[in-house]
């Protein structure tokens, strides 16, 4: 990606789209790039990510604007972009645990389209990576000045005379 962006032969300066895809068996991340030099589209597909723990390096170091696109892909598919500084949910509420655009996430009215099968209950088995489910504890030294930090949570119920 770095080469595609910087190399004088390519100069794909514009990230036109960043899409997550769940094919049912694996995860993809699809990038569409545009170069003002040659006026070409380029589609880059990062295929073959495992559905259990999809991880892909972030491109926010090249395109700052990819940050929200990656957050959206994380929110909808659970794809983890390593190196994104702000990888949290963007559309769904923060305490939401599923990933809605995955193929095993079924809408309640799916049953209407498959007569005889009834409503299919599917356990959401996917767990995001351990590191992301934990709060950022290494920032705990900010301590009392940062409301909601780990240090404060421990002391939250303490009563002051």
């Amino acid at each position, binding site marked *: 990606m770095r080469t595609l962006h910087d190399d004088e032969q390519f100069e794909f*300066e*514009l*990230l*036109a*789209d960043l*899409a*997550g*895809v*769940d094919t049912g068996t694996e995860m993809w991340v*699809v990038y*569409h790039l*545009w170069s*003002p030099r040659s*006026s070409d*589209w380029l589609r880059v597909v990062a295929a073959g990510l495992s559905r259990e723990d999809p991880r892909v390096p972030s491109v926010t170091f*090249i*395109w*700052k*604007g*990819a940050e*929200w*696109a990656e957050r959206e892909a994380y929110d*909808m598919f659970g794809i983890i972009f390593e190196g994104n*500084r*702000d*990888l*949290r*949910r*963007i*559309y769904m509420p*923060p*305490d939401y645990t599923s990933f*809605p*655009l995955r193929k095993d*996430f079924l*809408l309640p*009215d*799916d049953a209407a*389209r498959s007569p005889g099968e009834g409503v299919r209950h599917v356990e959401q088995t996917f767990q995001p990576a351990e590191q*992301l489910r934990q*709060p*950022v504890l290494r*920032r705990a030294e*900010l301590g*009392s*000045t*940062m*409301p*909601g*930090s*780990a*240090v*404060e*949570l421990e*002391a*939250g119920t*303490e*009563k*002051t*005379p």
Partner: protein
Amino acid sequence: MTTDRGTVRSLDDPNIWVDTPATIFDAVPPYPPRTEREAEFYHLRDGEMLLNLGPQHPSTHGVLRIVLKVDGERVTDLDPVLGYLHRGVEKICENGDWHHAISNCDPLEYVASMFSEAMPVLSAEKLLDLQIPRRAEYIRVLCWELNRIASHGLFIGWLALDLGGLTPLLYGFIERDRIVEMLASLTGQRMLFNYLRIGGVNRDLNHDFLSRLGDWMSKAAVELENETRLLNENEIFVRRTKGMGVLDRDTALRLCVTGPNLRAAGVPYDVRRAHPYSVYPELDFDIPTRDTGDSYARYLLRVDEIRESIRIIDQVLHEMPDGPIMAKIPRMIRIPPGRAFISVESPRGQYSCYAMSDGSDQPFRLRIHDPSYFTLQAVGHLMPGNLIADSMAIMASLDPVMGGVDK
């Protein structure tokens, strides 16, 4: 240990002091920060405070909540909170067939729906490798350009409103209402048209539409001059937009901003010319650009675009061919398996769609890329350092639409 909120007397025992409980009025979320950026944002330095703006606020242009970190009147950082309009359109599209996707995509860009409803239509046509009748192509271009004018006209009004002027908004709405009524007589709807179809358009041009259009075209250029003359040399307007919110070329590209905001920074990137679709290669129009990249340049650029759109409409009306408006395809349509990426130039930038089909009558994946989403992200980089009132004006000059941001 006490919190920043201080202590209050306990309700159970007035002799005991407890931490002030967090209330819904606190902008601070009740969980520990989960990312580096969040930890950085919610760490307040001396003299800073958090100010919650929205989700219901007249100048946020929709249901957007922004947590501002302010130092006095000056914004030092901000954290937009999205999702208040999230409907899961992509998931709904996957669960309906391709024809349903047209009406589902309509309310994404509710100011210019003709562009968002083109997404499933154009991608299905590309997957089918379908040639649509020329008359249908011309009608589509006509509707797109009319809708672009309506959207830009509204933009001018909103920008002036956020700077404290009410009159241009009223003028903008008069113009927009004429176009919207015109399109209503063609499509049957004022805002969410549901007009494009896979293989053509829904209805042919009718007399009512054409007479309204002719009436409007005869004075459109004059009306535009009247409206913009209110602002172009208005001292207050110019001083509050010139040099404000400068988005230079490299930053705009790094932030994936497209459309008028990118062209105002000097990059002549317009999908209509860079990757021509429909009948745009046959039409004669220019791509206006500006170099300064400030709010004023973005305003002037949109005015120029309205002029170009009027030129396009003029040509389309002169060259409108006769013939059918729908290609001969079956009603129940199965799209061949494949992947397609299409994009159109919407009033807010490159509106693109990455569609995957598995050969059934439903889209397997319909990823919709809305330019407003990336524009709003750029707002987060332009606001810091400005006064609160000015940052709202900068946001208006970038023109995001929340329907598309939240999908």
